[in-house]
């Protein structure tokens, strides 16, 4: 770097080296996977996958703010890579009640505002959590106190996502049904806050009971209508 021209060529090479990684790691996959469209069924207006509700999308922020992704993944690796399928994380029932067991594909995530693939499995994979917890009441109870259902859980309790309030008139419909140790004092009930409701709506939207067969290798799928 004796002179400015030497510095320029050094800097130029540096730029090329950085661009090499940026293009290979980000730009190419982006061109390939950044604009995937849902698959449309031939002869109907159904699309796969489908979008989830607005409440569920609001739940993404609760999921992010409370750092669920630091212990939970949302990706199922293929049977050739790891034991995710054996753990049962890739299994969900489709509309006809038949089991769909498969890996995750890029197209599974196109409707999510924010994607949480996660890098740690201190907790279970949540790709198909709605299959294992099909109703909101079970999820509320688990979030309120995981030890009640699973004494080995290392998941923290999320009491702060709930409020204890005095029962006036009829008890609330979504009040928690808890065992004695956790239950609210007589005349009081524990109900989920708006945050808890959207988080649970989000978790209930996590279920991949559909096939994306043409997308097996992650190759962009051409909808049938555009084929000649």
């Amino acid at each position: 770097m004796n002179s400015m021209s030497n510095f320029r060529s050094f800097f130029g090479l540096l730029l090329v080296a950085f661009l090499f990684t940026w293009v290979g790691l980000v730009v190419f996959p982006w061109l390939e996977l950044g604009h995937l469209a849902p698959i449309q069924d031939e002869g109907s207006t159904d699309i796969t996958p489908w979008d989830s509700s607005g409440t569920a999308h609001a739940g993404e922020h609760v999921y992010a703010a409370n750092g669920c992704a630091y212990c939970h993944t949302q990706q199922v690796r293929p049977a050739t890579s790891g034991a995710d399928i054996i753990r049962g994380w890739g299994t969900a029932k489709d509309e006809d009640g038949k089991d769909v067991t498969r890996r995750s594909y890029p197209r599974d995530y196109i409707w999510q505002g924010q994607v949480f693939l996660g890098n740690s499995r201190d907790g279970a994979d949540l790709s198909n959590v709605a299959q294992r917890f099909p109703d909101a009441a079970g999820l509320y109870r688990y979030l309120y106190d995981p030890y009640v259902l699973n004494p080995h859980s290392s998941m923290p309790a999320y009491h702060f996502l709930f409020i204890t309030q005095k029962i006036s008139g009829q008890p609330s419909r979504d009040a928690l049904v808890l065992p004695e140790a956790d239950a609210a004092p007589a005349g009081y009930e524990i109900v989920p806050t708006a945050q808890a409701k959207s988080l649970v709506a989000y978790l209930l939207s996590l279920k991949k009971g559909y096939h994306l067969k043409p997308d097996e290798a992650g190759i962009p799928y051409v909808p049938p209508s555009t084929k000649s």
Partner: protein
Amino acid sequence: MATLFPTTVAPRGFVSTDPELAAVDASVRWPVMVCFLTAVHWMVVGTFLLVYASSLTHPQDSFPILGLFIDLSNNFSMFTYGRVWPAAIDALVYGWASTAGLGLAIWLLARTTRAPACAPAALMTAVVFWNLGVAIGLIGIFLGDSTGIELLEFPTYASWVLWLAYALFALWSVATYLGRRPGHDHIAQAWLLVALFAFPWLYGAGSILLSSHPMPGSGVIQELIDAWYVHGIYTLWLAPLGLGLLYYLIPKISGISIRFGSKAKIAFWTWIIFAPWTAVHDLVGGPFPAETVTVGLILSGLIFIPVALIGMSLISTAFTAEDKQGHHGGVVFPFLVLAAVAFVVAGLSEQLLSIRSANELLRFTMFRECNCFLWVYGFFSFVVFGSIYYIVPRLLDFGWRSALLVRIHYYTSLYGILLVIAMLCFGGVMQGNTLENPDAQVTIVTATDVSISFHIAATMCISLIAIGNGIFALHLGWMLIDWLRLRVRGNRLAAEILLEPYEGDAPAKTTKEMAA
């Protein structure tokens, strides 16, 4: 042990004997000192948060204080694991490592250009705003504004403060670099330029594409960019900063030139090209293009070339110097040698993850934390410790107060990080073996039961590191108070205050210049 930290009294203060370097040091004294002091403050904050977060990973434990921690985490959203853990890591990466890194970059850039720094007020503004950005970001995480994106958790309003602070610092560094004295090029400068150039690219692209202007529908590309960002921070920001300091300080302190200096250039370029591809370690088996992962694993597998070359030259320089002088050379040197060793170990852990089957086993386990700790605590923190022990006396013309405290700091940090790494590494393998067990009866509960004892051990070892860090912070504070008292009283208490051996400032022969 006696020869590891020989303590002698400095004959004539600590200011560099080279008048040019003394002028340079004087010109950057306050910006660098403010960087170091705030960085040490964030280190204390981050380590405390880390101990707390780590203790929440084994809630069944009935250790008395844990009950309080768990009650806090259950009932207050601020104290839940999912907020404290990212806050701890961000405090360590942005508050501790990066703030200290800015200080080191300022000092090294001024020293290697050998020109007294211009516009110290602008520099000070940048440092103050950087710290402000970190503080706002951490508060944002605690209040629930975290983006949930690894290492980019700071909410957008904090990212902008950080980025603008860095831009101001970058302007200053460009001005300083253009005003450099000719004929004093140093390989450390090349590493420094990489770091200074990489950070705005990484942080700008990461925070714009992921948090301030996220693209709905882009799907898994978000996670790809995040993987590129996280590993970019380790390999293109922290690693080059640390290596720059090692390439500068090791020859300077030992008085001999870097061994295998002719290989420095190839090590440099292979690192820049291969190391960022370690990002694919977070993508194996996931919903990503298979060819990207395969190519990435091959390229990141070649990381052993720069790691071996850099490790060989730095460590063998240290050993040659030891042979010549018969001791390890003062307070500073053991930290720097350990940093060089930690760099090699961190490189080995990346190498391990670039093997597909090992990656499948370790991907989702605590081995990943081991990898993060190796970069941030193992490698970079030791560079910063050694550098602070070296630089601060030269800036203040005042010695460290106690060789015993340095010794305690050294051994607690050394054994703390060794044990943490061992626990997380073995724990990761055990956890991975359970998670990837082909027996369908094995569930996530089995894996949790296996990993919990390693989590308990990790908490204890992190507490050991915390003790060492606390002693270091107290020592720095003690030194500063005594320095202030001396300034007020105005008399020098020669033998009482000088407890660091004086390593000469003879200009070591620099290795071949790096320009292409």
